[in-house]
């Protein structure tokens, strides 16, 4: 019994010692953490409006928790931010001037440059829109209209990114704004927007700031959604400044360009403002891909097919076309209320779509030129437009309600005063321009009026007669994004791609004159 007792005392003592020791260890550990916290690694990030609008806070929190570090955001315009990098005073710069970043990288200060996200340049202005720029998608065209109408315009005048873009536009247009309609705010974006609101002036801003501010602005409306304003991130090169925390900077870049970081960017502001403020760029090929449905006039099938393929390769977004007569497409859109892009053969249908509020933003793409098409060898000896009225000539035209060329052919004939005579010769009307080319090439008709471009592949079976410019009506092809699109961002990218230099090259290859042009 006695031995038992001694043993139990020893065991108790042992337990007490262990408890005491472990408590000491825990306390020590805790102390050491407290002692370390002021020395937690710090990351300094220079950026402008993404910080101002709160995006950086949303991005930083999960990163700080995961990497036990502190991220400090330094408010700076792109130029200032890059200068801080040049002095080694920050680890990272997030900026939106491609040229400035190009220079920065070339000088060797930057490393690990990566696309991050974008918003859009926008032009806002008085709701009654005296310059008539609503729906333009081209900043330069909109600025031209503002200058032409002498409408009140507010400039930032601060030599920041937005002001630089504005100056480039005036330079491109060759316009020197005059003080009777041109005012300067010398202030930041939010303050400038308020000032424009009070003045009733046009003003160029970015879409994110507009989204945040629009609830507080009574007199302004969003009129022009311009090109994307792309943000990129770059770290400071540790070879230039060994003191910067390059490892942490690198981790931060990896984090904000990861699916997790890009999702935060994509969702930021959605709940509060009903739409995202920024659109992620870094995960374009992994993120939400979706498909685009494009309503495209049947006459433009070939160039658009090629552009669609190029776009798919570039952006990994599948492009599906609905090719039919322009009027037919319009009624399909009306019935289904689905799709992303409308591109009819003539502005007539485009204007109807605009009146029905189907079109959100639009751009001008190329010229569509009507010509006279005859079967090879010209059996009815057609020499000019007036010959269509000769007795016995078999004329075939498009249905004016169904396709753009049908509507336009009637107008051209009317303009030349021969519509009634030619109508007597019309043996049939078709629903698309491609049918007209087919029937002429199999000699079931003597003559037709078609788009020049639609004859490209039928050259060996048809002959072309140009219509003199005085007698002709040349159309400009428009492209627009649809209000009911569920993929507006990608639709917008597609529209921009169609009108890009790469897109224009395709148009010219298929016999169109791209816009703008001397003609």
């Amino acid at each position, binding site marked *: 019994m006695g031995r038992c007792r001694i043993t139990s005392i020893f065991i108790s003592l042992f337990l007490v010692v262990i408890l005491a020791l472990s408590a000491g260890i825990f306390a020590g550990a805790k102390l050491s953490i407290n002692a370390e916290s002021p020395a937690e690694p710090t990351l300094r990030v220079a950026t402008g409006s993404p910080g101002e609008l709160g995006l950086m806070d949303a991005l930083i929190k999960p990163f700080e928790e995961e990497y036990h570090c502190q991220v400090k955001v330094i408010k700076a315009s792109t130029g200032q931010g890059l200068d801080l990098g040049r002095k080694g005073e920050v680890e990272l710069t997030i900026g939106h001037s491609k040229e400035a970043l190009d220079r920065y990288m070339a000088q060797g200060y930057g490393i690990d440059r990566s696309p991050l996200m974008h918003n859009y340049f926008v032009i806002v202005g008085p709701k009654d829109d005296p310059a008539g720029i609503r729906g333009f998608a081209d900043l330069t065209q909109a600025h031209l209209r503002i200058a032409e109408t002498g409408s009140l315009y507010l400039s930032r005048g601060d030599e920041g990114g937005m002001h630089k873009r504005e100056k480039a536009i005036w330079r491109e247009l060759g316009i020197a704004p005059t003080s009777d309609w041109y005012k300067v705010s010398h202030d930041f974006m939010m303050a400038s927007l308020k000032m424009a609101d009070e003045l009733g002036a046009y003003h160029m801003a970015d879409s994110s700031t507009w989204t945040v501010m629009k609830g507080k602005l009574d007199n302004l409306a969003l009129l022009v959604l311009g090109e994307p304003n792309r943000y990129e991130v770059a770290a400071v090169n540790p070879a230039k400044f060994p003191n910067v925390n390059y490892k942490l900077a690198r981790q931060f870049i990896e984090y904000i360009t990861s699916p997790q970081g890009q999702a935060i960017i994509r969702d930021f502001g959605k709940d509060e403002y009903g739409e995202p403020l920024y659109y992620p760029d870094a995960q374009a090929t992994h993120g939400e891909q979706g498909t685009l449905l494009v309503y495209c006039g049947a006459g433009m099938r070939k160039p658009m097919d090629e552009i669609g393929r190029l776009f798919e390769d570039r952006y990994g977004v599948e492009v599906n076309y609905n090719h*039919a007569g322009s009027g*037919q497409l319009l*009624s399909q859109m009306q019935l289904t209320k689905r799709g992303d892009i409308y591109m009819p053969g003539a502005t007539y249908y485009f204007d109807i779509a605009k009146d029905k509020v189907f079109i959100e933003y639009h751009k001008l793409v190329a010229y569509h030129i009507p010509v006279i098409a005859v079967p090879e060898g010209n059996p009815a000896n057609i020499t000019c437009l007036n010959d269509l009225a000769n007795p016995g000539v078999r004329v*075939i035209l498009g*249905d004016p309600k*169904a396709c753009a060329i049908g509507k336009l052919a009637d107008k051209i004939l009317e303009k030349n005063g021969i519509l009634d005579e030619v109508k007597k010769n019309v043996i049939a009307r*078709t629903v698309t321009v491609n049918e007209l080319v087919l029937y002429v090439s*199999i000699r*079931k008709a003597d003559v037709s009026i078609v788009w020049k471009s639609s004859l490209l592949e039928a050259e060996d079976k048809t002959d072309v007669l140009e219509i003199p410019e005085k007698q002709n009506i040349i159309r400009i092809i428009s492209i627009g994004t649809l209000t009911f699109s569920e993929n507006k961002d990608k639709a917008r990218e597609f529209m921009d791609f169609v009108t890009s230099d790469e897109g224009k090259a395709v148009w010219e290859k298929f016999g169109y004159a791209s816009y703008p042009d001397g003609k």
Partner: protein
Amino acid sequence: MKERQCGKNLAMHHIQMESRWAKLKGSKFEALTVFLTLLLAAFVLAVLVCVVAHTTPEALLESIASSEIQFAIKLSLLTSIISTALAIIIGIPIAYSLARYNIPLKSLINTLVDLPLALPPLVAGVGLLLFFTTPLGEALEEVGFRFVFTPWGIVLAQFLVNVPFTIRVLRSTFESINPRYEYVAQTLGCSPMQAFLRVSLPMSKRGILAGSVITWSSAMGEFGAVLMLAGATRLRTETLPISIYLNMLCGDLDMAIAASSILIFISFLSLFIFEKYSGGHAY
């Protein structure tokens, strides 16, 4: 005694089991088939009601009264009556020969005559259009037989697509008449033609009527072949189906519905007449 009957009983029992099983299976099977039938009937009805009920009766009447639909009705009636008459006139001797005589290569000819029935009308239309680009077709057009883009093209397209159908109905009608009637008529002094005209033809009156109605109804609805050969030109080659097509793709739903409603009415009417006169076993 008991032992001997046992086998018999067992067999009886087996048969009873089987019939019970069949009954059980039959009842479930019956329920399933009836259910499917009702489902399809309801679906067909829903589709038709959707067409007619899409607009108000006033709008429907207004569209029917419009000059475009009036033109389409007249053109459809005219072309379909002509093409049906042609199909019957030409179909009767052909059907008779196929029913009565042994022609060399009969089965091959039969297949060729029937082929347009199985062929999509669009293909028949493309074929017709291309035929008129050949030297023979061009020559026909030179002489004045103009079919491309003309109402006559509608008649031709309707005829080609529907005549096999007419022939099938007529053939089975002639086959159902015992040739002995004609033999008897011939022994009484009729020539074969007289025997046909006086005996077989009057006897197949009902079949011919049924055949005409069903041919006419599908001629009214013929679209693909007509579109290819005659085109879809407003107020020129615009039949009721072409009118649906043109107005549908230009977004004029009311007009399309008006034309559709008329075609639905015609289909009901002709199916009713067909069922009444064909006795349900015309082909």
